[in-house]
């Protein structure tokens, strides 16, 4: 994780074709595209629409509905910090405030050096050991602001 390929229409077509035969293929295709490129490029929308015989508006609607689909490239790593109640009960909000201040970014922002994108998330299922976060696919528990700012170098 973290190293994304630059946008490439041909590669995107191949990825789309691999999943197009699935029942209800839109989400699997978008996930596959985001896994490779890190986001859903604007040009991907008509490609998916044509492959699935749907309108661009429908695909755009799906991309914009789901929080997880990004429409611009993320930093080298993505940190998803939990904002939900169980993490709030152990100081999650204060951690989030400190992190945003220390990194100089708000939610969905990327640090200036391109190292880290900060995303809010509502629950990671690590609720007995909060505050919790997910760095790319690595779980973190009992998170402190220091541990996160260390990641952004």
């Amino acid at each position: 994780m973290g190293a994304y390929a630059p946008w490439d229409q041909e590669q995107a077509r191949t990825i789309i074709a691999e999943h197009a035969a699935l029942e209800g293929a839109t989400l699997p295709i978008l996930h596959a595209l985001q896994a490779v490129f890190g986001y859903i490029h604007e040009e991907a929308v008509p490609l998916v629409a044509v492959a699935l015989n749907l309108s661009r508006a429908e695909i755009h609607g799906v991309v914009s509905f789901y929080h997880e689909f990004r429409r611009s490239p993320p930093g080298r790593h993505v940190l998803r910090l939990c904002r939900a109640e169980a993490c709030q009960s152990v100081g999650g909000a204060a951690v989030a405030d400190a992190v945003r201040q220390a990194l100089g970014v708000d939610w969905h922002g990327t640090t200036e050096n391109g190292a880290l994108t900060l995303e809010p998330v509502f629950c990671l299922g690590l609720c007995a050991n909060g505050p919790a976060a997910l760095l790319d696919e690595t779980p973190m528990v009992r998170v402190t602001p220091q541990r996160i700012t260390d990641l952004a170098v």
Partner: protein
Amino acid sequence: MSRIFVPRDAVALALGADKIAALLSQFDTVIRTGSRGLFWLEPMIEVETPEGRIAYGPVRPEDVPDLISEGLLEGKARRLRLGKPDDIPFLARQQRLTFARCGVVDPFSLQDYCANGGMAGLERARQIGPEATTRMVLDSGLRGRGGAGFPTGIKWQTVAATTSDRKYIVCNADEGDSGTYADRMLMEGDPFCLIEGMAIAGFAVGAAHGYVYTRSEYPHAISAFDAALEIARDAGILGNGFDIEQRVGAGAYICGEETSMLESLEGKRGQVRAKPPLPAHKGLFGYPTVINNLLTLTTVPVILRDGAEAYRDYGMGRSRGTMPIQLAGNLRHAGLFETAFGITLGELVNDIGGGTLSGRPVRAVQVGGPLGAYFPPALFDTQFDYEAFAQRDGLLGHGGVVVFDDTVDMAKQARFAMEFCAAESCGKCTPCRVGSVRGMEVVDKILNGINVDANLALLHDLCHTMKFGSLCALGGFIPYPVMSALTHFPEDFRTVRRPLAAE
């Protein structure tokens, strides 16, 4: 050589379990398991000795060399020694049916699974036939564990009674409620149990295809379940008339609502459908569909294996069987506690949970996720039971219990509920889409001391509209946390604060 068991549960991984496993593998055979759910003791490792397994925890990677030299491999090291897992009070007090194997077996060993009671339910179902299988689920009293508490057997009967050449089984593993993690634990720790439960459901109603809709926030559960699917296919458990495919959500809480999940599986925006038609009649792609929570489906195998009466004997009133309760938040002993319905909230928080982690007094407990009510200690005699919670304007939801100490600001929690609803609303119905935004604004006015009495009255009225006018449980239940905060903690709404910083 004996064996050492090291969990691969996401919590244990966050605490260095992979490193511990690598260190220990130099000395002995390491088996990776799920978690037993004693999360304050993770990573909790277990060594096999002639007297049985001996647990140690919480073990950090740097503890390993010393533990080895003190005799860890024979269970002789004294430091961090917890004794036999089943004797640890937190586990000894439980009645584990759904979670019997979680943390015990290698999640990818079918041999382990079968040696510990797995597959007996599916065999029984095949012996007694589809109708008797559905009857057994009905007789067990099992109700939907996602929160609605609808009798599972009736859902199955409805789908079984339809005549369609295509039917689907959909498992709801979009465990979005804060404070819940039971689905994640089972997918990581006992994935074959879900496969068996879905195969039984498919057999009972005549469905050939199953989908598991897992949330994207669970990367380890997703990969564990995909691996288990492969193994089950190779072993011929899947692929002979019934198969399962896993689909991954994309961060939308609303997709845990059943009709929204169906839309999402069909590749659309996760917008709620009006009912009727019920999914049992017209569900996925318009075909009859059983849609059950993961905890419901993983409880089916044990019901088939041990019988409907054995399961129904647990519990109270109309809440039969056991519930995997998830203790979370500001709690000393937070973890998975499966027990018969009927235990009180106070027992869970104080006796089993050991009070707050911070050591401060408990002030509020939210049961049932972001749509659940906040209960004060004065209501700690409430029994864990669908009806008992409903009577006190609360709900059980998916069984999450989140504890807050006395530093919590309940007006802020009420605002958060509205904020969450605004962020996660699917947008289809006005009470939820607009009501949540207006609700946030009204709470802000109250927090800033503007026309407090009038705005409190307005908030009551708005909650009433949302409760009765929303299309689904998101807008319909968000008044629970808001109203419970208002009812039980009115003083927090009378304190004037400085204007809120812009978020």
